[in-house]
């Protein structure tokens, strides 16, 4: 039956039919070795990574010569290692997940940038799409953001539902301007924003965005900026002064901004503008993937990554994400509990309520469960337990009764008793001085006695 599946004409079809045959558990990777003569893989491609948890691997030239299974495996080993590097959880992922806690020594710059771009693991995220209209007198913007979200963003988020809870909202902000004045470039006949100045763009806008009032989860902002007619068209240029084709940029752990140029050639103001949401979401979706920590490292030569389907996320990518997130959660919860313990050590007379003790112990229990499930390779449960551990440990840590300031610091008690200590010190000090002077005088006295 698997042979039938592998006899399909293209790799993508083979991948789907293989998935129909057997559902592989999360966290696992199945590699099918196809003979070199197989037509499933296109010419020049030796590995095809599917959108589920399967990979097709073309047997090398030496396969025909080798007879024993061991030799076959040995000859495939390098390829399999590479496949696992791409599809599964590796040492690099652990260091990336723990990058905040591990000193970045031998890590590549690229990996560091990747890990810094993604949001830290959190039980939930708020995603806000904002349309910035700096000049409502000339542009009347319409965007069908509800439909766009449900068709582009929602599939990805529902696939990522085991990782975190997501809530989406959108808003339109009027008279919101960027913090930088774009410069006119006569060669392009357009206004440009250089990559160097992009860091100043966000601040004035951010004051208008409004933080999420309803929850304390981190907010991912995606801004669609439609420049006003005086600064239009507006292009973002990179360091080499080439225009960026997507006309968008992202700010690590904050969100993304896209500039959407409108050629408003209407005679009557304001001009009605309907925004092409397909183009917009085509930019925001990859940015969202990056922010949420879905790594997309460049595949090694000879690899072909299959299209990730309408969800925008392959199963093996989700597995990897769940691995890293679980590890990160476990690390975060452990740090929280450790620092709570340190705090309690510092303040001797702190009162620990029963509910806090309960939360700490259940957090520790969930942590142990999460680690156990991770060892078994049960990703879904590990993720869930690690989330619980984070929630409980944070609830215990941020309990108002554990506020450091509620407890009277010991050093200030000395200040209160200074009226007692100070006069009491005076005779002691005086007698000490006297003793010292006596000791100094004593040799002289001894001489005098000798005489």
């Amino acid at each position, binding site marked *: 039956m698997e042979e039938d599946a592998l006899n399909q004409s293209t790799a993508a079809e083979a991948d789907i039919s293989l998935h129909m045959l057997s559902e592989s558990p999360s966290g696992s990777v199945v590699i099918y070795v196809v003979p070199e003569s197989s037509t499933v893989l296109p010419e020049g491609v030796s590995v095809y990574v599917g959108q589920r948890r399967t990979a097709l691997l073309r047997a090398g030239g030496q396969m025909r010569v080798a007879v024993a299974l061991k030799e076959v495996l040995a000859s495939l080993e390098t390829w399999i290692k590479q496949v696992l590097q791409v599809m599964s959880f590796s040492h690099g992922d652990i260091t990336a997940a723990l990058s905040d806690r591990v000193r970045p020594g031998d890590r590549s710059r690229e990996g560091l940038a990747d890990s810094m771009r993604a949001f830290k693991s959190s039980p939930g995220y708020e995603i806000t799409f904002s349309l910035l209209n700096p000049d*409502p007198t000339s542009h009347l913007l319409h965007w069908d953001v509800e439909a766009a979200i449900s068709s582009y963003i929602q599939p990805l988020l529902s696939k990522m539902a085991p990782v975190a809870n997501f809530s989406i909202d959108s808003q339109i902000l009027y008279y919101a301007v960027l913090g930088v004045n774009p410069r006119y470039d006569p060669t392009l006949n357009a206004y440009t924003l250089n990559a160097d100045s992009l860091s100043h763009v966000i601040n004035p806008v951010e004051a208008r965005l409004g933080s999420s009032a*309803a929850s304390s989860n981190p907010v991912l902002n995606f801004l669609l900026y439609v420049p006003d007619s005086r600064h239009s068209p507006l292009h973002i240029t990179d360091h080499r002064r080439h225009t960026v084709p997507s006309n968008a940029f992202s700010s690590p752990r904050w969100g993304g901004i896209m500039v959407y140029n409108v050629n408003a050639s209407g005679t009557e103001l304001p001009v009605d503008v309907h925004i092409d949401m397909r183009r917009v979401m085509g930019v925001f979706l990859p940015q969202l993937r990056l922010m949420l920590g879905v790594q997309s490292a460049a595949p090694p030569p000879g690899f072909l990554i299959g299209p990730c389907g309408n969800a925008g996320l392959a199963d093996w990518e989700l597995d990897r994400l769940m691995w890293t997130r679980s590890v990160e959660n476990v690390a975060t919860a452990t740090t929280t509990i450790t620092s709570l313990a340190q705090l309690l050590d510092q303040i001797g007379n702190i009162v620990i309520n029963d509910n806090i003790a309960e939360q700490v112990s259940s957090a520790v229990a969930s942590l142990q469960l999460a680690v156990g499930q991770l060892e078994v390779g049960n990703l879904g449960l590990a993720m869930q337990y690690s989330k619980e551990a984070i929630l409980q440990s944070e609830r215990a840590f941020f309990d108002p009764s554990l506020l450091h300031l509620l407890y009277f610091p010991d050093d200030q008690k000395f200040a209160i008793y200074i009226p*007692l200590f100070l006069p009491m010190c005076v005779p002691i000090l005086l007698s000490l001085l006297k003793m010292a002077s006596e000791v100094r005088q004593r040799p002289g006295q001894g001489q005098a006695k000798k005489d």
Partner: protein
Amino acid sequence: MGAEQKFLVCWCACVCVCAQKRLWEGTEVGTNLADGASDNKVDHVHDTMQATDAPPSPPAKDQTQRFAFDERIWEATNVEINLVEDAPPIRDKEADEADHVLDTMQTQDFPPPSTAKDQFQEELVIKPLHSGDIYASFQFRTQWDTDFLEKHKFSHYRLFPKSLGQVISKFSVRELHISFTQGYWRTMQWGQPFLPSPPGAELWVWFQDTVTDVDLAWKELTNVLSGIFCASLNFIDSTNTVQPSASFKPLGVGNVTDQRFLRYAVLPREIVCTENLTPWKKLLPCGSKAGLAVLMKSEKLFHSSFHSQALHIRPVCKDWQCKSTSWELRQTLNVVFDLHTSGQGKREWSLFKMFSRTLTEACPLASSSKVYVDITDNPQGELFELSPATPLVSQAVVLGDGRTYSVYDLTDHATFGQTHSLNVLLRWRAAESGEMLRPLLHGERYVAGYGLQTGEIHTLVYNNHPYRAFPVLLLDTVPWYLRLYIHTLTVTSKGRDNKPSYIHYQPSKDRLQPHLLEMLIQLPPNSVTEVTVQFERALLKWTEYTPDPNHGFYVGSSVISALVPSVVAMDTNNTQERPLFSSFFPCKEESTYFMRIYTEPLLVNLPTPDFSMPYNVICLTCTVVAVGYGSLYNLLTRTFQVEEPSQGLAKRLANIIRRLRGVPLLT
């Protein structure tokens, strides 16, 4: 001691009354009348409680109030009269009305709901006050056509601010009213404000009936609002939150009037300043970049005698049939500029003088943007001169009084004229403005008594109507540290005992809940009704005092809500402008109107200990101990030895003299 026991008895009795309220409803009135003669105030409370079955009519009031609101809007838009150039300034209104009803129907402020989902309107009313001060009232209204019961639609915002939408959906808020006020509205000098508010911060919220734990939602809501408005609303807790039974009814659609879902709190101490104005302005769709909001320059707004900013969210009907609802957000800002500090004593006001800005454009998102100037007292221009002149005049019934307004429509480019800016200027011709009609309802409050043990709260409610009596609802919230002796509650008007027909009293619990006293009192015509109640000042724990305890402790304003008979019926001049057939019977919405006024907040001194005393005691005892310790230490450590007394100076001098004389030396 005796007083305290009495208080306790009274407390128990009240609790019993509350518990047995339903049972008592059936008993006959006769027995109570017999009891009424006795001096016992507990009995007095009994029969007033029992009289609850006489309907206190809050639902009716609620409806009227809402009706009046709608009516006002309609009035404002309905009667726009385009004056022809050669016509006299005031023409026969009736003739014009017929001509222009068609026009106004087409140009009414509300476009049909099918075209726009959200709407935004802005307006500014400028009213010269009789004291020479000027009152400017901004109103911004954002209407969001989304059904408040459907939760999933709560995520895409256009004109409605996202932060407030999230608050509404997260805490299942049905109605939210919040106001920040600096200064006290002087009713006797200024008349009635459009939207009254007490000094400090006031917050009242109706939750939806799906909320299970209202107290928790209220606590979280106050904390979130405190973050949104940069205010200390997080100091609202159970010790200053009450659930009024009758005074605060929902203003929006819906008929849930179960007070379990209502929370009301006032922070009279809250100081309002720029940091509260900035987040408030940020909620406007145009921010302070365009439209009327450009006038809001904080250095001018806070250089005034009275400043009040408020925000009201409620569900309203989307159309006349009221088949679906939409959310309404009203942001209001009221300022009174003082004649002497802001106007340098000159009776000449302009937008530039008030706000140091002029208007150049309407907010492009607003479906209507208007400036109204009250010219009721100035029909012929004899009192003040208004420039630039405007052809638009609007009439509205505001607080039971027919008013005439000059209207500047900012959406019309002709309003701005050649200079592309609008600077409305009012220049007085006469030094004095005319007599002000005395406000029909007015309240005052003060603390009487001496010493730091007991005191007495006096609340005076004035009914200035010459011949009509009307009932008012008085709501008093008193913190627990003023322990009210409810048996000393007296209500007198014109020297006679005035028995409230409804009393809702909720005794306080120390450190948990405040006193709540609600009464329905009938005010006789042309009278002063005095409500007095004695209290004892509690001694607080030392951590419960504020950082400046000798400043005193604030007690929030009393709230007086009333259906006041309109002055339109009183006004005989009014018949001149109206056809005779329309003015015989006062029509319903004009005969009474809803009004809410706030009295002054109280500042009460509590017995304050000397906070430095413990430290003084520590210092003193420590010094004594240290002195004792020092002498004991000296006694123990000092070695005593006999020392040869050295020769004194006198002796040495004597010996020198003796040596010179050759006499034997002294030893």
